[in-house]
C-alpha cells in the first residue's frame, strides 16, 4: 500500500499529535538538567518545576508596589489593544473590500494604492506612529491596523471579485440595486472569508502588538517580557510566551467555531 493511502488509527493519531510536544518538553528538560548540573545558579534554562512555580506566583500574587496581579493586568491591556486593532481593521476591510470588489470606479482609484501601501513595512513607520499618535494606546492600535489592514483589504476585495459574475447578474435580474447586491449577495458570502482572513492575520497582529509594547509601554504582555529580559528572568519570559501562545491558539479555535456555527452553508459548498 502506498504511503499516501495509509492512515493512523484514533489512538495512534492522538499519540502522534502529542509526540512533538512531548519531544520538545523532554529536550528542554534534559538541556535544563545538564546546565543546572554544571552551574546550579544558571538562569538561561530554568527547570520545568521552577517555571511552574513562577507561573503560580505570577498568576496569584499581587505586585507589592501596585497591589495588582500584573499578569492579568498585562493580559487585559494586551488583549484590549489586540481586539481593538483587529476589530477596527476587520470592519474597515469589509467596507473597503466590498467597495473595491463591486464598484469599478473605486477599484480604479484604490486597488493600486492599497497594493503599494501594503508593501510598506509597518515596523519601519512605527517611529512615525509614535510621533504622530503619541506613546499611548492609540499608537499601538494604529500599528496593528497599519500592519494588517492592507492585507485584509487586498484579500477581501479579491474574494468579492471571485463571486461568480452569474450570481451578480442573477441578482440584477431580480431587480437588486447596487446596495442590495452589496448587502444581501456579497456581504454574507464575504463574512466566512473574513474570518479566515482574520485567522491568518492574527499572527502578524500579535507580532506588531508585542513590538509596539516592547518599545514604549507601561503594561502589556510584550512590555513585561522585554522588561524582565534585563534580569534574565527566563522563567517569567517562558510563562508569558506559553500564555501568549495559548491565547493565540484559543482565538484561532474560537474563530473556527464561529465560522462553523454561523455559516453552515459554507461547509458543503466548494
Amino acid at each position, binding site marked *: 500500500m502506498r504511503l499516501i493511502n495509509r492512515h493512523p488509527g484514533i489512538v495512534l493519531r492522538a499519540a502522534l499529535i502529542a509526540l512533538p510536544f512531548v519531544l520538545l518538553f523532554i529536550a528542554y528538560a534534559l538541556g535544563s538538567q545538564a546546565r543546572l548540573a554544571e552551574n546550579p545558579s544558571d538562569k538561561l534554562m530554568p527547570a520545568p518545576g521552577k517555571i511552574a512555580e513562577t507561573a503560580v506566583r505570577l498568576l496569584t500574587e499581587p505586585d507589592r508596589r501596585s497591589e495588582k496581579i500584573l499578569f492579568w493586568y498585562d493580559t487585559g491591556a494586551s488583549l484590549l489593544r489586540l481586539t481593538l486593532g483587529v476589530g477596527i481593521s476587520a470592519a474597515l476591510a469589509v467596507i473597503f473590500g466590498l467597495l473595491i470588489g463591486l464598484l469599478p470606479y473605486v477599484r480604479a482609484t484604490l486597488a493600486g494604492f492599497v497594493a503599494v501601501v501594503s508593501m510598506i513595512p509597518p515596523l519601519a513607520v512605527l517611529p512615525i506612529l509614535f510621533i504622530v499618535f503619541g506613546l499611548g494606546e492609540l499608537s499601538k492600535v494604529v500599528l496593528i491596523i497599519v500592519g494588517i489592514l492592507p492585507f485584509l483589504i487586498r484579500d477581501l476585495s479579491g474574494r468579492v471579485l471571485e463571486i*461568480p459574475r*452569474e*450570481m451578480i*447578474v*442573477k*441578482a*440584477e*435580474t*431580480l*431587480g*437588486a*440595486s447596487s*446596495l*442590495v447586491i452589496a*448587502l*444581501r*449577495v456579497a456581504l*454574507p*458570502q464575504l463574512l466566512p472569508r473574513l474570518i479566515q482572513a482574520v485567522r491568518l492575520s492574527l499572527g502578524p497582529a500579535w507580532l506588531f502588538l508585542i513590538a509596539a509594547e516592547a518599545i514604549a509601554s507601561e503594561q502589556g504582555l510584550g512590555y513585561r517580557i522585554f522588561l524582565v529580559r534585563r534580569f534574565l528572568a527566563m522563567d517569567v519570559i517562558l510563562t508569558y510566551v506559553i500564555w501568549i501562545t495559548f491565547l493565540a491558539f484559543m482565538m484561532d479555535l474560537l474563530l473556527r467555531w464561529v465560522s462553523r456555527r454561523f*455559516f*453552515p*452553508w*459554507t*461547509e*458543503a*459548498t466548494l
Partner: protein
Amino acid sequence: MSFVTATNIFQSYGRRPILERVNVSVEEGEFISIVGASGCGKSTFLRLLLAQETPTKGEIRIGGEEPAREPGLDRGVVFQKYSVFPHMTVLENVVAGESFRRPWGRFAGAEKRAARDRAMETLTRCGLDHMADAYPAALSGGMQQRLAIGQALAAKPRILLLDEPFGALDPGTRLSMHAFLMDLRAETGMTVFMVTHDLEEGFKLGDRVLVFDKPRWDPTDPDIIGATITYDFDARNGGIPYQTIEEETHVLHPA
C-alpha cells in the same frame, strides 16, 4: 408588432467580430431554442438579450421599450451554474425573487409572511417544498436548477433566458427537467430563450430553433467573419409542423 425584436445586431470584441447582422423578431409566448457550434456567438447573443452587454451596433427591444443598458426585472435568467445564492436557504432564495427589488432587499412583518407563503407555493410547484429550509449545497444538480427557475419566475420577468440550463445534468434528470419546464411554460405562457448544445433538446422544447453559424468561411482569416442566424426552423410538432393533417379524414382509427 413583435414582442422581442433584435434589429441589425453587430457585436465585436476588439477587432474580432462575433455577431453580424442578426435580425430576429419573436412573438409573446414563443419558446426559442438557440443552437450552434461552440464559439459561434449563441451565448453572446443571450448576454445581449440579457443586456449584460450592449451591442456594438443595432438594438434589442422588449415590448417596444427602449433598449436596456443593464440587466433588470423584465429579464429572468438561469445559468448552467451559480444561479442560486448559496448563503440563503431554498425558501429564502425564492423570497429573494420578490424582495431584492426593495431598497434594503428585504420584506418585514405581514408582507414577509405573505411572501413566504407565495414562495412555498412556488416550491411546491417545483417539487422542492420538503427542502425549504435546506441550503442549496444540499440539493442535487437538477433540484438546484429547478430552484433557479422557480426563483427567476418569482420575480415575474417578461422573458426568461436559459443559458444551457441542463448542460450539467445526467440524462434521466434532464428528461424530468424537460417535463417540468414544459408544464411550467404551459401554465405561465412565458416567452423563453434557451441556449443549448443539444439539438434534440432544442427541437423537443422549442417552438422555433435558431441556428447560429458563420455565413461564409474565409480560409485565410477565419476570424474575420462573425456569426449570424443561418437557419430559423419551425420546431412545433417535433420539427414537422406542416405534416399535421388539419381536416377530418374519416379514416377508422383502431381504438
